[in-house]
């Protein structure tokens, strides 16, 4: 119910929302949880295992119970904590884990079967028969398990990412965080103040006490206003710092639009920030822990601080009559605040016999809550009084306070282990904190408001001093400074189930069972019972579980230790981790200089090393890709074709030692390559396996241009840089990539020269005599455009590669097509390129597959013995040069129209398809329009000696089994007459 006055909500504005199919009203400033409580809704979900009715346990991000599915369609978001969902008009949420309805859930039968569904139930029950696991048990368990459901529709909202830098990152904008930000902000430091809440102030917004005669929330607002005016301070509300990573880097998620029905156009739903800090001040506060007692999970039972927050911040009481159960003075504060707001407090039940007096309600000192009632919501509690008698109290809500745990999660992300502090009966940050992290306020175990304010200012000044920034601590406002008075009390002994971990349905009984069965280490306890393994990471449950295990083992809590908190602090949506990198923006796209022209021609593109390359150019009437590719191959071999080969890597190699550098980088010789000539080169890895092949053109004595395969452009450049910088730093060599600087086209076919002569300026003689096979030159084209011409051939035809500055690439392809019209010049794509290189027997990526040597490739003699080069020595390993080593050969099917499957393995006729009979494999296969037959190349054991033999190419994947003849890999023009023509 909504109280008549108070609260930090805008009562003048009403927001409509829907939960579980019913319509409600709330106000700006509400969370979904506060608005539901204001509307009298306590039942918000069902538990994971027993499907018990559940309401809110907390008022913040530590909430384990009130999980809902928010929104619908592609925006549906499961496991959303109602306690942190900022209410907006039109919000709709659905309960999860309930069928057919929240009030009547069929799987609540699990609750009746709880004696069987104890910890370890799965491990024990589904062990046998083993065959049942995959087909029966797992599908059933998977259907029953899980929290909420994900949408199958794509998320329509954009997400973003970014990077921030600061001197001081302050995590948490409660009293210590605000005071720290004020101190550092006034000192001129670059400050980021991040808080997961949409309203800064932390507990100041939820408490009733004054700070310097102001309401705590007003004081917080005043400080925030000053911080906003400081240009060196960045305030980041709705931002959860979820992880402390290496070198002072933090991950944070800013919920930019989660408080809106739909993000504004162009604006992200959430942003992932990577924050680079010089120092970090953790002011994450503390989290109140519950006490375990029988049936302590009914809707209406929550932490006392949550009850206080709902009353003070949101002017909401979950019920007209409430009770409070505590082991420390903070529970008294809750009772006092409730009474001050006009809420009837049935009793204040304090486990301490010496509890301080309470005003306005009955104090039951030395008493314990031993049971509760109410199926879908709390109706009453049973109290065992100090004198042993029991008493029933009617109430609709119960606030429980078992003490406060400093919020140490982020201090543990670099394996810091907190230490037990008896004074507050809780763990405090200790050990190796993340680099540059300092802890202040309640997160450090300082619980009074005065202490948190003072701590924030002091620790901020300390952090800045480390950075050489002088800070003057602001005057401290007056604030309460009550000591922490607590008598640890973890659970009420009972035969009934008492919940520790509400999200994973772990009870005190489960911990006892774990102990009984020998799972006593905290890490074993966690995994055996699943305590703390839910999405809340046990923020409200770990401590209770540890304490009970300590009690059972007779060890202290300090000796029992803690499990490890890991990122993320709270769940992070996968979408925000991806940021903008989704769909077609998953990775960059590289466009060739002829891309726009090719698109106009209707080219079909394929992605190669992020490049979009034209795969083939369909023409009207062509119904299959084969028709287009066959035409392109035939036209090129008959007259002339043109292909964009810009994507091949180009590396400019200069320096007085450039030739010797290449001599050492390639396995074949380069030192004596004349200026104006190109040579094919093969690079080996250190281990002697073939790495990449390409050409090196010598433009001057001290200047080469090396080409690489498209996919290996970057790896080869990196490899050469490594060699230059680390292997041979005394060589005078300079490298730089020029892949993008030149638009390069292959012009191939018997009429290639005739076509080029129309484009190359007349001053340059490109006749066969003047510009023979493997010549290169810097020339001009089209009346003076600088260009480079290489007479090299991948297709096996008379061919050239012509390069111009990239900006002229589009114009050049159009010019080539125009000038080549009289020769029926045909653009060809990567498929035709592939067919022609297979016809010619040229190795490509399929053959340079990371397993093959120069010997395998038929280039064993290229590995020069007259010089040393990378990989040369290891390429001569005995095992790589056995008599039956694989050799590159060609294959022709006995029936020319029988397809040879790429990847097929080679077998003798009649041999079984087993590994022992494997003779090699097919690497590349295609239909050759030139030969009017399917052909292939691949590796065959002792292949060169088996020419003319008949084998089988069999694919266990496709079931194809084809008789093939072993032939030379050079199907077309084996003598090379065409390319020298």
């Amino acid at each position: 119910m909504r109280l008549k006055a108070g609260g930090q909500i805008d009562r003048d504005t009403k927001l409509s929302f829907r939960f579980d199919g019913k319509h409600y009203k709330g106000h700006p400033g509400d969370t979904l949880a506060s608005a539901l409580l204001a509307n009298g809704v306590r039942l918000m979900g069902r538990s994971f295992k027993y499907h018990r009715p559940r309401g809110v346990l907390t008022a913040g991000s530590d909430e384990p119970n009130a999980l809902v599915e928010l929104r619908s369609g592609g925006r549906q978001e499961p496991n959303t904590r109602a306690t942190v969902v900022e209410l907006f008009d039109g919000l709709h949420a659905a309960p999860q884990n309930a069928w057919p309805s929240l009030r009547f859930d069929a799987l609540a039968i699990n609750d009746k079967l709880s004696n069987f569904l104890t910890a370890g139930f799965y491990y024990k029950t589904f062990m046998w028969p083993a065959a049942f696991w995959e087909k029966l048990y797992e599908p059933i368990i998977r259907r029953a398990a899980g929290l909420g459901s994900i949408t199958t529709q794509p998320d329509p909202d954009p997400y973003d990412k970014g990077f921030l830098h600061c001197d001081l990152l302050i995590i948490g904008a409660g009293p210590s965080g605000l005071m720290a930000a004020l101190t550092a902000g006034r000192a001129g430091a670059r400050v980021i103040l991040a808080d997961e809440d949409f309203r800064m102030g932390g507990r100041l917004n939820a408490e009733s006490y004054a700070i310097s005669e102001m309401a705590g929330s007003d004081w917080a607002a005043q400080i925030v206003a000053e911080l906003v005016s400081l240009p060196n301070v960045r305030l980041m509300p709705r931002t959860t710092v979820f992880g402390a990573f290496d070198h002072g880097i933090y991950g944070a998620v800013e919920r930019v639009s989660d408080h809106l029905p739909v993000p504004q156009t162009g604006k992200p739903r959430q942003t992932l920030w990577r924050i680079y800090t010089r120092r970090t001040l953790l002011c994450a506060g503390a989290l109140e822990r519950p006490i375990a007692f029988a049936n302590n999970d009914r809707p209406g039972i929550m932490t006392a601080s949550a009850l206080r927050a709902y009353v003070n911040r949101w002017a909401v009481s979950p019920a007209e009559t409430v009770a409070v159960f505590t082991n420390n003075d903070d529970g008294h504060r809750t009772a006092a605040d409730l009474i001050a707001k006009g809420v009837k407090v049935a009793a204040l039940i304090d486990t301490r016999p010496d509890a301080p007096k309470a005003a306005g309600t009955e104090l039951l000192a030395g008493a314990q809550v031993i049971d509760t009632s109410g199926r879908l919501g709390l109706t009453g509690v049973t109290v065992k009084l100090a004198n042993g008698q029991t008493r029933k109290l009617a109430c609709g809500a119960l606030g429980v306070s078992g003490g406060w745990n400093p919020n140490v999660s982020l201090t543990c992300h670099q394996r810091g282990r907190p230490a037990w502090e008896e004074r507050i009966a809780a763990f405090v940050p200790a050990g190796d904190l993340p680099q540059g992290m300092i802890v202040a306020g309640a997160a450090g175990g300082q619980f009074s408001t005065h202490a948190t304010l003072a701590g924030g200012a002091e620790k901020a000044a300390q952090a800045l001093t480390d950075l050489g920034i002088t800070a003057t601590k602001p005057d401290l406002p007056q604030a309460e400074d009550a000591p922490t008075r607590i008598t640890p009390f973890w659970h009420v002994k009972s035969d009934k189930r008492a919940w520790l971990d509400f999200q994973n349905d772990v009870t005190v009984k489960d911990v006892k069972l774990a102990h009984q069965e020998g799972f006593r280490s905290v890490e074993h306890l966690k995994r055996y019972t699943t305590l703390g393994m839910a999405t809340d990471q046990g923020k409200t449950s770990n401590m209770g579980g540890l304490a009970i295990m300590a009690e059972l083992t007779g060890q202290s809590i300090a000796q029992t230790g803690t499990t490890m908190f890991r990122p993320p602090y709270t769940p992070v949506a996968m979408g925000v981790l991806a940021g903008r990198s989704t769909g077609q923006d998953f990775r960059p796209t590289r466009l060739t200089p002829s891309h726009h022209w090719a698109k106009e021609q209707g080219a079909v593109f394929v992605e190669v090393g992020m490049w979009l390359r034209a795969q083939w150019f369909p023409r009207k009437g062509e119904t299959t890709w084969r028709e287009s590719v066959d035409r392109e191959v035939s036209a090129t071999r008959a007259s002339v074709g043109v292909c964009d080969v810009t994507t091949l890597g180009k590396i400019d190699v200069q320096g007085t030692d450039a030739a010797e550098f290449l001599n050492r980088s390639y396995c074949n010789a380069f030192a004596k390559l004349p200026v104006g000539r190109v040579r094919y080169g093969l690079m080996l890895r250190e281990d002697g396996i073939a790495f990449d092949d390409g050409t090196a053109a010598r433009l001057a004595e001290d200047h080469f241009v090396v080409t690489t395969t498209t996919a290996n452009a970057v790896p080869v450049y990196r490899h050469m840089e490594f060699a230059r910088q680390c292997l041979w730093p005394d060589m005078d060599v300079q490298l730089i990539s020029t892949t993008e600087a030149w638009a390069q086209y292959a012009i191939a076919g018997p009429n290639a020269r005739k076509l080029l002569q129309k484009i190359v300026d007349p001053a340059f003689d490109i006749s066969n005599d003047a510009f023979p096979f493997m010549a290169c030159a810097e020339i001009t084209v089209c009346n003076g455009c600088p260009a480079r011409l290489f007479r090299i051939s991948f297709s096996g035809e008379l061919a050239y590669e012509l390069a111009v500055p990239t900006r002229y690439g589009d114009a050049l392809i159009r010019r080539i097509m125009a000038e080549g019209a009289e020769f029926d010049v045909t653009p060809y794509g990567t498929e035709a390129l592939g067919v022609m290189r297979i016809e010619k027997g040229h190795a490509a990526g399929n053959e340079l597959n990371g397993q093959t040597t120069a010997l395998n490739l038929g280039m064993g003699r290229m590995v020069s013995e007259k010089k040393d080069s990378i990989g040369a020595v290891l390429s001569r390993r005995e095992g790589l040069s056995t008599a039956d080593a694989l050799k590159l050969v060609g294959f022709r099917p006995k029936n020319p129209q029988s397809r040879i499957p790429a990847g097929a393995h080679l077998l003798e006729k009649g041999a079984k398809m087993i590994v022992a009979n494997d003779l090699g494999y097919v690497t590349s296969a295609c239909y050759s329009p030139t030969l009017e037959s399917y052909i292939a190349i691949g590796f065959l054991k002792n292949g060169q000696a088996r020419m003319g033999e008949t084998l089988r190419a069999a694919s266990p994947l496709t079931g194809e089994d084809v008789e093939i003849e072993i032939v030379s890999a050079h199907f077309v023009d084996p003598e090379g007459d065409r390319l020298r023509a």
Partner: protein
Amino acid sequence: MHDLAPMTALGASEPRTDTIGPIRITEAPDWALASVAARLGQEATCQTALRKLLGTPAPGVAAQASGPVLSAFWIGPHIWMFEAPYATHPDLAQQVKAACADTASVTDQTGAWVRFELTGRDLPRLMERLCNLDMGAMQAGHARRSVIEHLGCYVIRHEDSITLYGPRSSAQTLHHALITAARSVF
């Protein structure tokens, strides 16, 4: 003069300009680029030649320097990228090579990069969504290499603007990232 028409990296005949909030993103194709790497043992001589060419000392680590005509920024140990208006310096690489002679290796890089000029207020708010450079700490004359949208880029800070170089073939990807980030902020 040859008759091949240039195309911008974004695939048009004219450079593109986008204005989003206070930010203007302009493609700047009219720049010639040449990389200069000092030869081994020639570093000092090379720097003397570059100083003469540039009219000011070649920039130090992660810096940019502007002379009366040319400008340059540091891209590695004893390696610089020289810039000049393309209209007046289409042969920038040859000019630089002539100045350095055998003290340096010079490579034409004009076609390798797309250049964007970013102007307007709050540029750091745009850049913080693109790369991990600390724009708050970058002063005019600073030049850094960084990764934007998985692409290796150069970011040069001027008094009131930022010059951004990215790989030309991915100009559309980079442009898309700039536009998306700008819309995300403004």
